[in-house]
């Protein structure tokens, strides 16, 4: 067959968002790819310069609809670094619970989206069923289902609701048991293995050179988890360990990237259970602590020349916020807010990973990198 370019996207089941992958194929073999991003650029960084610090949190929620809490928390940590706010420890624990539940929900969304990519709809519905439990928990915390606006500068919006800890333990334990069902459906299925193993090799050193982070690079055997390498919240106090795969000599394939996320979900579940146990003041008590236990006072203005930075282990990699204080001229507004999106770096690399494989492998490889276009285009 002759070579031809196929334009996959912006409306295509493979893209998981709004972008275009131009693929050059020779028959069924992919010989070149070109990602084309920027369809939903919303100028979020410019919007940040026109709002004061508290009003930008909602925009951070909208950076990635599948993982809203992690993005708003990343931003809040950067603002607290800028304004030099001390956060109460109970608030840190509540934040950790919220972020890790969000991470489980995000990875479930990924697994649910990945299985139809390789042709199975059952796992999709099972994953969304479990994600529903996580969204229920987050709804109790933040009040809405997808965009929570939960963290505040200096703490969190509100304390744990009545009975939250008990429901959270029930659901997390139920979820941890149900992971076995996924393994029965996926790991023990030869068809899933032949679709994911030996497909989409990503070499660890290449990933590091490109700046790929998060589960994708941990699937390549590189133990870089910001929560572990530079513990920021109370991650050094709860019981967990980063999930790292041992890849083959050729690099990490789609199966490694699947395994690392499943193990990370288990670690997050463990972390939530442990944080509920270790929470200062107890997780089962409610509103006996006063607002000062969950929310510290924070200034509204940042002096000129100051800058805040935080790097955060997002569900998809290392997200960074760099905020420069506005000073007298800008008032309550920041001078600059720069966002580093992990997927903006990963998607071009993933597009190059699929050269040499079949057309049928394109969704299997692209999906395994967990693309999220909201944060990519910002």
């Amino acid at each position, binding site marked *: 067959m002759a070579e031809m370019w196929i334009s996959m996207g912006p409306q295509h089941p493979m893209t998981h968002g709004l972008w275009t992958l131009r693929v050059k194929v020779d028959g069924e073999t992919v010989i070149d790819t070109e990602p084309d991003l920027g369809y939903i650029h919303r100028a979020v960084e410019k919007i940040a310069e026109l709002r004061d610090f508290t009003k930008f949190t909602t925009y951070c929620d909208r950076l990635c609809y599948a993982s809203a809490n992690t993005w708003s928390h990343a931003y809040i940590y950067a603002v607290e670094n800028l304004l030099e706010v001390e956060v109460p420890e109970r608030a840190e624990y509540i934040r950790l619970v919220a972020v890790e539940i969000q991470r489980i929900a995000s990875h479930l969304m990924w697994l649910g989206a990945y299985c139809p990519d390789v042709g199975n709809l059952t796992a999709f519905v099972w994953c969304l069923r479990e994600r529903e439990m996580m969204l229920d928990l987050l709804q109790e915390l933040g009040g809405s289902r997808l965009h929570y606006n939960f963290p505040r500068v200096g703490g969190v919006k509100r304390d744990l609701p009545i009975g939250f800890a008990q429901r959270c333990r029930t659901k997390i334990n139920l979820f941890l048991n149900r992971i076995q069902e996924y393994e029965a459906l996926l790991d023990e299925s030869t068809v899933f293995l032949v679709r994911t*193993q030996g497909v989409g090799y990503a070499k660890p050193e290449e990933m590091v050179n490109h700046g790929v982070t998060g589960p994708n690079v941990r699937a390549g055997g590189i133990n870089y988890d910001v929560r572990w390498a530079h513990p920021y919240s109370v991650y050094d106090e709860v019981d967990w360990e980063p999930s790292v795969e041992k890849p083959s000599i050729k690099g990490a394939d789609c199966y490694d990237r699947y395994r690392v996320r499943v193990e990370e979900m288990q670690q997050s579940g463990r972390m939530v259970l442990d944080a509920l146990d270790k929470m200062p003041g107890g997780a089962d008590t409610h509103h006996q602590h006063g607002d000062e236990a969950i929310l510290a006072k924070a200034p509204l203005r940042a002096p000129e020349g100051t800058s805040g930075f935080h790097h955060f282990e997002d569900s998809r990699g290392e997200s960074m916020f760099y905020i420069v204080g506005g000073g007298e001229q800008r008032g309550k507004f920041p001078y600059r807010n720069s966002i580093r999106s992990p997927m903006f770096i990963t998607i071009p690399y993933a597009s190059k990973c699929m050269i040499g494989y079949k057309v049928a492998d394109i969704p299997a490889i692209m999906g395994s990198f967990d693309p999220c276009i909201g944060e990519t285009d910002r």
Partner: protein
Amino acid sequence: MAEGDWLDIRGWVEALSFAVADNTVGMSRFWRQKGTTADILTELIMAVVVFGLIMTTMLVLLWIERKFFARIMDRRGATMAMRSLWVGEGGEHVDWYGLLPFGTGAPFRWLNRWLNKVAGSDHAVESVARVHDRSYHGVWWMLPGFFQNIADAVKFLTKEWMVPTKADKFVFEVAPFIIISSTIMLFAFIPLGPHVWSANPDLSLLFLMAIFGIAPLGVFFAGWSSNNKYTLIGGIRSAAQLTAYEIPLLVTVLAVAVLSGSMNIIEIVEFQMVMDGWNLFLLPLGAALFLITMIAEVERIPFDMPEAEAELVEGWWTEYGGLRWGLLFMAEYLRAYAACLLFAIFFLGGWEPFGGNLVAQYTAFIPGIAWLLIKSWLMFAVFVWVRASLHRVRTDQILEFGWRWLLPLSLVNLGIAVWLRLWVWQGEVWSPLVPGIITAIAVALFVLLAIDEDPESLGGRERPYSVHVKAGPAGPGTHKK
């Protein structure tokens, strides 16, 4: 039991058409053509009867696809369609019967309370009620969702018909006709019962398999004529896949014909009934091969490469819309239905009751067509089960599997059939030992293959399935090397 079946539709139709021909043509000066007229009338009526039976019973297939799949997937919407009406989400419901005058809504309230009690998932804690939703799957005996198919058909009828610009309009229009007409023609040769069939030539098996091979041509036409790269790839994949799986399928069917000593489908069924042994127990390997190749032929998961929606959007269907899409979709299910019916006919004893001669005298009041349809629906449930548990196999893996495994295995199966027919079969009823031993060997092999999996080595082994081709980035002139 062909003679014991009281549902002698063909006999009734013959009597009717002879009576009609007698009183019309027989009274005229063309009275010599009386017999021919009656035959033609019989064939026409039987064709309509079989077509109607197939089209109405096909709704069950769609219902199984919807409901059984939803149950496996644990999907809330499809499994709880009736529940939201009567029981309500978490016990809450629209209290419409409370608005009825003079307390006439009370029976509805009692019914609802009772349904809540026996089938609801009420719990004081909302999350626990939600977890309980898992075990509750609607009021199944009300057949919720059965008439969704009619709504779908109405929707297809109202859609606009568009031909893409620069598509080859003639071929684009003709392709669905090739696919649909050849698919419907299949059912002319599939007997639904000893007396319910449309045509019965001596070589009906040969006719059937020949017609089964026409649709891939239409698929290829459709993919090529749409002027779309996705449909082109889908059409080519379809051609490659159907060619690769047609040959093992034919060899497997040939083994059945050899064992039964006939190329006539009705005689194949009667051989199984008279000789007291279903082919499933005599040719278990053949049954497995037939199942796999048929799933590939009707393009269902795990072999639905030609319409892989993840990468090819909808494969060769992409540019079709409206009623033609609906009819293509129907043709797809008709092919699956034909596959299920053929499996039941070739391997499950056709219209013989479960239990064979032992129970036949007690179940004589059930017509043979009921047994055949039940068996084919069960087979379709197996198709749905396979679809729900497996993933989609890649193109090269499908072809490799077909050529490397299925073709040699089907030849082995043919050898087994020849051996059974020539050396084991003594011209009388099978001794119970023969199917017993063969089935025991097959089950033992299956168990051995199933437990021979070491989960430890599964994770750490060298990845054996890599198909990476060394291909550098393309540039001007790179394809000429």
